Every structure is written in C-alpha cells, then in structure tokens.
C-alpha cells in the first residue's frame, strides 16, 4: 500500500497514456468497452488527484513535509534525473483537469464521440499532456508535455472536419508550432548558460551567473515567457484562440478550457520561482500587467462584437487569461490566493458554458454560420471515407437514449447560471472570486505604490463584467425569447448532467469558499517560498541516496 502511495505522482501520466494506447486497439463495434476504459482511466485520475490534493494539505504534513512531494523517475535523483514535483498548485490543477475532463467525457459519450478519428484516445492524451505539464519539475519535460497536449488538441480541434475547422486548425497548428520553436530556443539558451534544466536547480544557480551569461539567460527566460503567453492566449498572440475554440465541437472546447491555464500555470510557476531577483521580477510584473490589461480589454471588445455564442465563450476565456495575468503582474503576494480561486472558477465556468453551447446550437433551425458559408460540394467524398454521412454529424441529428424533460427550462436555467458565473454576479463563485480579488488589489496596491495600477485593473474588471452581461443577455434573448425561429431540442441526459454537475461544483465552491480560500492561501504561501521548493526537490536527492545505500 505504501509502495503504491509512493508511486501516485506518476499515475496521472501513465494511466491516460496506457488507456489511450489500449483504446486504439478497440474497434468502434465495442463502444461499451472503450467507454469503460475511458471512464475508468479518468476516474482513477480523479481519485489520484484527490489523494494528492489531500497529501499536499497541512492535514497530511506527515506524508510530505511542506506539502511538496518529489517523485524521481527511475530513482535517478534531482538535478540529473527527471523529477515530478507535486505541490499544492500542481495537485489543485490536476484535480481541476480531471473534473473538467470527466464532465466533458460524459458529455461526449452521448453522441459526440461516434464517427471518425479515435476521439477517446486523443482526449486521454490531451489530459495526459495537461497532467504532465502540471507535474513536471524540469523545463524540457514541460516542453514535451506541452507538445503532447498540443498534438492531441490539433486532432481534436478538427473533429467533425469541414472547411472552417480544418482551416482554423491549420492556423492553430502553425501558431503553436512557431511558439514551440521559441520555447525550445529559450530552453536551449537557459541550458547553454546554466547547465541544468531542473527548475529547482536552475534557480539555485541563477544568482551565481557572471553578467555576460546572465544576459543570455535572461534572453532565454523572455523567450520562454513569450511561448507561455502564446499558450495562455495573451494579447497580441491570441488571435488563434477564438477561432480554434469557436469551431471545435462542444466537448472538445470544454476539454480545452484548462489549456490556456496551462500557460498561466507556467508563468505563475516560473515567475514565482524567479521572484528572488527583484529587478527582473519588477520588469516581468510590468509586462505581465500591461499585456494582461490589454488582453482583458481586447477580450471584452471581442465579447461585445461577436454574434456566435461559442466564440463569445472563447472571448471570455481570453478575458479570464487577461485578468489572471494582469493581477499576477501587480506582483503582490496577497493577490495570489484570489487569483487561484478565480482561475478555478473560470475553468469550471468556461467548461460548463462550452458544453452548454453544444446544446443551444441545436435549438436553431438553421445551423449557425461560424464566419463564412462552407463549400459543401466537394466535402462529401471525404466524409464517406470516414464513414460519416453528413458534413456536420453533430448538428441536428436526433439522438437515441433518455432525453430530459423541460429541455428549454433546463437550458435557460443553466444559461443564466453560466452568465452569472462569467459576469461575476452573486451568488455564484464568479462573484466571490472577483470580489476578493478586487478587494485585495485595492487594499494592498497602494501599500506597494501601485495605487493607480490597482484602480485601473479594478475598473477594467468591472467594465468587462458589465460588457459580458450585455453581450450574453443579447445572445440569451435571441436564444430563448425569439421562439419563431426556434425548436425545442431533445437533450440527452448524458449531455445535461455534466453541465449541471459543473455548475453544482461551482455552487459547492461558493458554499465552501472558506476552506477553499484557506487552501489557496496555503498554496500561495508555498509558491512564494521558492527556497523551500528548491530545498525539497534537491533534498530528495540526499534522501533517496541514503535510502538506496540502506537497501
């Protein structure tokens, strides 16, 4: 049992990898078996994530001192071998990933996973990439896991095909490949100057760099930062995001909800680790603050401008990224806990909202135009090859299985909940998160001499809230109050339940905001204490070596 507990940190990577590989061998005829494997894998991941979450809290301090667990792969110790590091931030992100992925998976089994490419394998690989990125303790593996999750997302974004999806997929791949090259160059520069890629080891050595090497190192760090900001959907590197999220089918978009937060996570992780250096931290903070602010405003304008619900939700992802980056850019420690709270709620919200768009799309008699009519003429042969008879198999098809009663009422209720969450209105946690964030910002910003910056951020956040209410009510009125061009869709219970589940998780988060905030406080404390992180990761070396000698 203890042996199994020791190996818990590797499970979120190994389990989906094997599940994905096995599911490739299961043909479409054995759908039940494939679904069982997919569910089993995600259930295990959720369980593991919850156990890890428990182990990193103060309640389990006897298991991992300081709430940081180090797993050396192949028992090769820290700076030379590859380590996985579980701290509060990673375990929190793991739990979030598993929750969202489980909801999206349940949703997809209603009919979205039917024809075409191996949806379930790609989905598991997407989750594996996200888990790995949250767990890894060194930069190069961060790159590898980024690539894993991106490669899976390339396949998923084009699910259902059609010109619009393939074209947007092409843009998406090109942008992300270019960003990956920047990431690699940054990693190479850092390795070239400092001779290590382990994040903990890296920081111990930055201070000792001679000035001319330091400049090269900084260039590498900036390149990494640019690559992370592309993934985080920060302005001006986010023009791919609304398109890619807007055209992808609902469960895929929901699975992507946490993807931009991987970029934010990387910024947060490396940013706090780098915060030892005052001057660099200040410049980094200023850049983050201004790009975040512009991202926030550009997302707001996008929300007001778009007519299509899924694109609107995609813009709300940009808004949340902007808010996170701008608040982190203030460089105030006390802001980190509300930022984490906001990140959690915004991931759950956008996932629920994306799932909802899959159902509201079906109330239309005519399918929405994403941005241009598709040329249907030469599409058919391609679909025939994939065994799909209609160009958009997810559009208007009637599903089999249990449908829920009062479909429009359910849709309306969930829509209102999602609007409240996105706009940050009470009583849902969107409000709690924004309220704590802004109150902390306004309270502490004058202390560190960033009074104006704090106020500007507060005004921008509130304005975005109003703008999202305006944009969403406009779309809501058209969705629910113009019945002439509408029909009541049949909603499968498997589609309705995940949305309700995610909204319910949000409600629970409101009710339990006290304990949640205490956890986020502890997370922030451990994040802003990089020395403990460094010592724990590198200290694991000594421990494992003595352990090895004893055997």
């Amino acid at each position, binding site marked *: 049992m203890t042996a199994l507990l020791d190996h818990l940190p590797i499970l979120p990577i190994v389990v989906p990898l094997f599940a994905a590989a096995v599911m490739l061998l299961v043909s479409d005829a054995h759908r039940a078996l494939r679904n069982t494997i997919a569910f089993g894998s995600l259930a295990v991941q959720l369980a593991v994530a919850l156990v890890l979450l428990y182990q990193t809290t103060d309640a389990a301090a006897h298991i991992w001192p300081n709430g940081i667990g180090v797993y050396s792969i192949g028992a090769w110790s820290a700076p030379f071998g590859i380590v996985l590091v579980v701290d509060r931030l990673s375990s929190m992100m793991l739990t979030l990933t598993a929750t969202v992925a489980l909801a999206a998976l349940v949703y997809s089994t209603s009919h979205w996973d039917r024809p075409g490419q191996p949806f379930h394998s790609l989905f598991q690989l997407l989750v594996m990439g996200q888990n790995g990125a949250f767990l890894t303790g060194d930069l190069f593996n961060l790159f590898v896991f980024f690539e894993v999750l991106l490669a899976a997302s390339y396949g998923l974004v084009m699910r259902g*095909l059609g010109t619009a999806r393939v074209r947007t997929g*092409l*843009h998406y791949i*090109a942008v992300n*490949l270019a960003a990956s090259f920047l990431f*690699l160059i940054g990693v190479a520069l850092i390795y*070239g100057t400092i001779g290590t890629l382990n994040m903990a080891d890296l920081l111990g050595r930055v201070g000792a760099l001679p000035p001319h090497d330091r400049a090269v190192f900084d260039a590498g760090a900036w390149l990494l930062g640019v690559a992370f900001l592309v993934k985080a959907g920060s302005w001006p590197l986010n023009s791919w995001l609304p398109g890619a999220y807007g055209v992808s089918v609902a469960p895929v978009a929901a699975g992507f909800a946490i993807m931009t937060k991987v970029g934010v996570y990387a910024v947060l992780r490396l940013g706090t680790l780098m915060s030892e250096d005052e001057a660099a931290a200040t410049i980094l903070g200023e850049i983050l603050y201004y790009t975040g602010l512009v991202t926030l405003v550009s997302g707001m304008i996008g929300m007001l401008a778009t007519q299509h619900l899924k694109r609107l939700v995609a813009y709300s992802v940009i808004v949340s990224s902007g808010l996170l980056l701008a608040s982190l850019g203030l460089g105030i420690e006390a802001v980190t806990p509300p930022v984490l709270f906001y990140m959690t709620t915004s991931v759950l919200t956008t996932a629920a909202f994306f799932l909802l768009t899959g159902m509201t799309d079906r109330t239309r008699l005519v399918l929405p135009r994403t941005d241009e009519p598709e040329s249907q003429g030469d599409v058919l042969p391609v679909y025939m090859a994939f065994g799909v008879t209609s160009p958009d198999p997810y559009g208007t098809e009637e599903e089999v299985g249990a449908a829920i009663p009062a479909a429009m009422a359910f849709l309306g209720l969930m829509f209102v909940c999602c609007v409240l969450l996105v706009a940050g209105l009470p009583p849902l946690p969107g409000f709690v998160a924004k309220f704590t964030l802004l109150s902390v910002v306004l309270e502490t910003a004058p202390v560190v001499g960033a009074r104006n910056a704090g106020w500007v951020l507060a005004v921008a956040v509130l304005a975005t809230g109003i703008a999202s209410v305006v944009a969403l009510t406009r779309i809501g009125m058209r969705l629910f109050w113009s019945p002439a061009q509408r029909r009541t869709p049949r909603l499968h219970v498997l589609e309705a339940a995940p949305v309700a589940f995610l909204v319910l998780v949000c409600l629970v988060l409101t009710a339990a905001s006290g304990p949640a905030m205490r956890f986020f406080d502890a997370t922030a404390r451990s994040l802003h204490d990089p020395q403990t992180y460094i010592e724990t990761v590198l200290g694991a070396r000594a421990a494992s070596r003595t352990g090895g000698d004893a055997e």
Partner: protein
Amino acid sequence: MEAVYALAIGVLVAAGVWLLLRPRTFQVIMGLSLLSYATNLFIFGMGRLEVQRPPILEGVDVEPALYADPVPQALVLTAIVIGFATTALFLVVLLKLRGLSGTDHVDGREPEQ
C-alpha cells in the same frame, strides 16, 4: 567555425520566418521546417561546438573535459522527433484543406483581386 554556424542558423531563421508569413500553405510548411532545422542546430550549438569529443563516457575514471556534453544532443533528438511528427501532421492538415477548399491559400479562399 562559430561564425559560420551562427550565420547558417541566422539564414535558416530568416528564410523560415519569411516563408511562414507567406500566404500559401506549402510556403508555410517549408518555413516551419526551416525554423525547426534552425532550432535544432541552435540547441546543438548550445552544447558548445567541439570536434573529436565523444558524448558517451567510456570507463569509470575519466576526465569529463575530454567529452562533449551529451544533454543537448539528447534534447536535439527529442526535438527532431517531435518537430518531425508535428510537421507531418501539418502536412496532412494542409492536404485536407486543399481538398476541402480547392485552394492552397492559408485562409481557404483566394483573396479578392
């Protein structure tokens, strides 16, 4: 040697970026390939350029200064594999878009004249 090496990477990057910004999908994929070559060379160069120094130690009691740093070479191998796979995937998407839209423009339609 360093100057020639750096020049080669610079030329590759310049050509790659220019091609990446062109409107035809084939040019874009060539640009991405050139960029990936440049990146790989760059990572390799970050392990310092040396001749006649093997990366793998032989024996236990050896002078490390006589050997090349093996880590960048391992990184390059990984980066090559990943870059190759993603470029292949991009190629498939490129062909698909060509089949669906009937043009090789990245936007899936010819710009209005």
